[in-house]
C-alpha cells in the first residue's frame, strides 16, 4: 500500500512577508502509481514533496498516507534528494546500511540485500568507496539504493537527476524505469524537465507559481515497459506537443 492524498492543503512559510507556497492543493496518488510533478522553479514542488515526506508541517488542510496522518519522516516514505545527501564519512555500503541499521534489523537479513542492490545499480566495485570518490550519477545511484533497501511504500524524488549531465541523466532514467517496473512502488517525482516527466510518469501534475497550485493533470498513455529510446517516438512527440499546449493554456489562465 502506498496511497497519497492531499485535500485543500495550504502551506504558508511564516516571516515578515509570509510566502504562500501551496494554495489549496488537491492530489490523489494511487497504489503503485508513478506521478510526476512538473512546474517552474519556486512553484512549490519541493514544498509539496516535503509535506508528504514529513519534513515540513502544512498550515491547513488534510494530508494522508495510506489513510493515516503524516507527522514525521519515516522509512515507508523514502526520499531521494537532488544532491543525493549521502553521509560523506560513510562508505557506499555503510550509507545504504544506515536505514536498516538504525531500524535495528538483523545484519544477516539486510547484508545480502545490499549486495543485491549494489549489483542492481552497478556499484559492486565501489562498495567501500566514499561518496566523494564517486561521480554525481554514481552518488545518485547510491541515494536510490539507500531508499530501496528499506522496502518503502512510496518513493519521493525531488529532482533527483536535475544536477546530472544529459547522458548520465538518461542512464539514470532507464535505471529508474527498470527498477520501478520490477518493484511497482508508488512514486512521486518532482522535475522541471518535460521529457523526463513524459518518459517516466503515468500521470503528470502541472503546477503554477504564486500561488502554488496544481493546474492540470495529464495522463500519459505510452505503453510500458518504457525505455529512453522512446524519447524520439512519434507517440512521444505527440504527447509532448499536447503537454506543451496544456502548459501554455495553464499559463494564460493564471497570468
Amino acid at each position, binding site marked *: 500500500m502506498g496511497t497519497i492524498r492531499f485535500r485543500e492543503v495550504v502551506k504558508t512559510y511564516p516571516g515578515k512577508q509570509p510566502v504562500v507556497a501551496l494554495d489549496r492543493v488537491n492530489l490523489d496518488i494511487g497504489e503503485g502509481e508513478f506521478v510526476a510533478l512538473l512546474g517552474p522553479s519556486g512553484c512549490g514542488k519541493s514544498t509539496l514533496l516535503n509535506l508528504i515526506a514529513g519534513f515540513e508541517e502544512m498550515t491547513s488542510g488534510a494530508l494522508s498516507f495510506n489513510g493515516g496522518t503524516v507527522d514525521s519522516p519515516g522509512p515507508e516514505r523514502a526520499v531521494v534528494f537532488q*544532491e543525493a545527501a549521502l*553521509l560523506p564519512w560513510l562508505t557506499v555500503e555503510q550509507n545504504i546500511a544506515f536505514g536498516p541499521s538504525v531500524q535495528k534489523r538483523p545484519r544477516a537479513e539486510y547484508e545480502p540485500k545490499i549486495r543485491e542492490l549494489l549489483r542492481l545499480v552497478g556499484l559492486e566495485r565501489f562498495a567501500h568507496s566514499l561518496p566523494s570518490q564517486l*561521480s554525481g*550519477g554514481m552518488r545518485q545511484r547510491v541515494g536510490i539504493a*539507500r531508499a530501496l533497501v*528499506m522496502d518503502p511504500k512510496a518513493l519521493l524524488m525531488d529532482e533527483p537527476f536535475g544536477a546530472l549531465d544529459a547522458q*548520465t541523466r538518461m542512464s539514470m532514467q532507464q535505471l529508474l524505469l527498470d527498477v520501478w517496473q520490477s518493484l511497482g512502488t508508488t512514486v512521486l517525482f518532482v522535475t522541471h524537465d518535460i521529457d523526463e516527466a513524459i518518459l517516466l510518469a503515468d500521470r503528470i501534475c502541472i503546477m503554477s507559481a504564486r500561488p502554488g497550485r496544481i493546474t492540470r493533470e495529464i495522463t500519459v498513455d505510452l505503453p510500458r515497459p518504457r525505455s529512453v529510446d522512446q524519447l524520439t517516438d512519434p507517440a512521444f512527440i505527440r504527447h509532448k506537443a499536447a503537454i506543451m499546449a496544456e502548459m501554455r493554456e495553464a499559463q494564460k489562465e493564471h497570468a
Partner: protein
Amino acid sequence: MNDAPARALDAAPVPAAPKVKSRGLFPAGRTGAAMRAALLPVLVIAAWQLAGSGGSLAGGVLPTPDRVWDAWVVWAFGPQGMGLNPYSGTWLSNVLFSSMRVAQGFVLAMAIGIPAGVLIGWSRAVSGTVDPTIQLLRPIPITAWLPFSIAVFGIQDMGAIFLIALGGFYPIVVNATHGARDVDRNWIRAAEMMGASRFDVLRRVVLPAALPAIFTGLRIGLGIAWTAVIVSEMVAVKSGLGYVLWDAYYVGRMDVVIADMLSIGAMGLLSDRLIVTVEHWALRWRRLQSASR
C-alpha cells in the same frame, strides 16, 4: 551507466611541475623546502650570537645562544642534587610535571566541552539554558581566575588543572557548538527518513558532522592550556616549566629562562602535532573529499 569514478587527477588538473628547476636560492623538493624553512632561524641565532659576544645585548643581560645551549645541557643531563645549581638534571621531570597537568586539564576540558558543545548546537532547549551562562563567563580571562583558583584549591595541582581545563573548555565548546549547529539540513532529513531516532541523529550524523569544527576547537584549546599551565605554575604551584621560568628569572639565570621558553614552545608544538595526527586519522573521509573537489 558509463560515468567513470571521479578521480582526484581528473577533477583538478595540476600544471606539470618543471623537472629540476630550483626556485631562487634553494634546490627543488623537500631538501630545498627544509633549507628555506631553516634560513630565518639560523640568521636570527647567528645575529644574536654576534651581537651578544660584543657584550651589547640588553646591557649584557641576555645570554648568547651557546650559553643557552650549555645551560639546557646541564639542566637536562647534569647531576641532580648539587647545591650550586638547583636546576641541574631536572628538565625532564619539570617537562613531565607540566605535560601531565596539561594532559589532565585538557582531558577534562574535552570531556565536558565536546558533549556540551554538541548538545548546545543540537538542541535549542539546551542552548537556551546553558549557552547564555557560558557566554557570560567566557570574557573573564583565565588569568583573572588565578586568585579564585588559589583560594579554592590552594598551592597544588588541582588549581593548575582547574585553570587549564577552564581555558581549554571555551574554544572547544564554542567550536563544537558551531559544528553541531551547521550540519547540512539534508543529512539530518535523510537520516530521519531512514528511521533514525533523535538520538541516532545526534550520534550518527551531528557528531561526525561536527568533528572538523571540534578539532579546530581542540587545537585552539590546547594552545590556551599551555598558557594556563605556565601562568599557574609561575604563581600557584612549585614545579613545572612555569615554576622554573619564574624562579630562574628571580635568581638572574636568563640562560635557563630562555632554554625554558624554548622548551615550552617545543612541547606546545609536539602536543599540537599529536592532535593533528589524530585529526588526520579521524577525518580521513574529508581529505579524500577536498582532493576530489
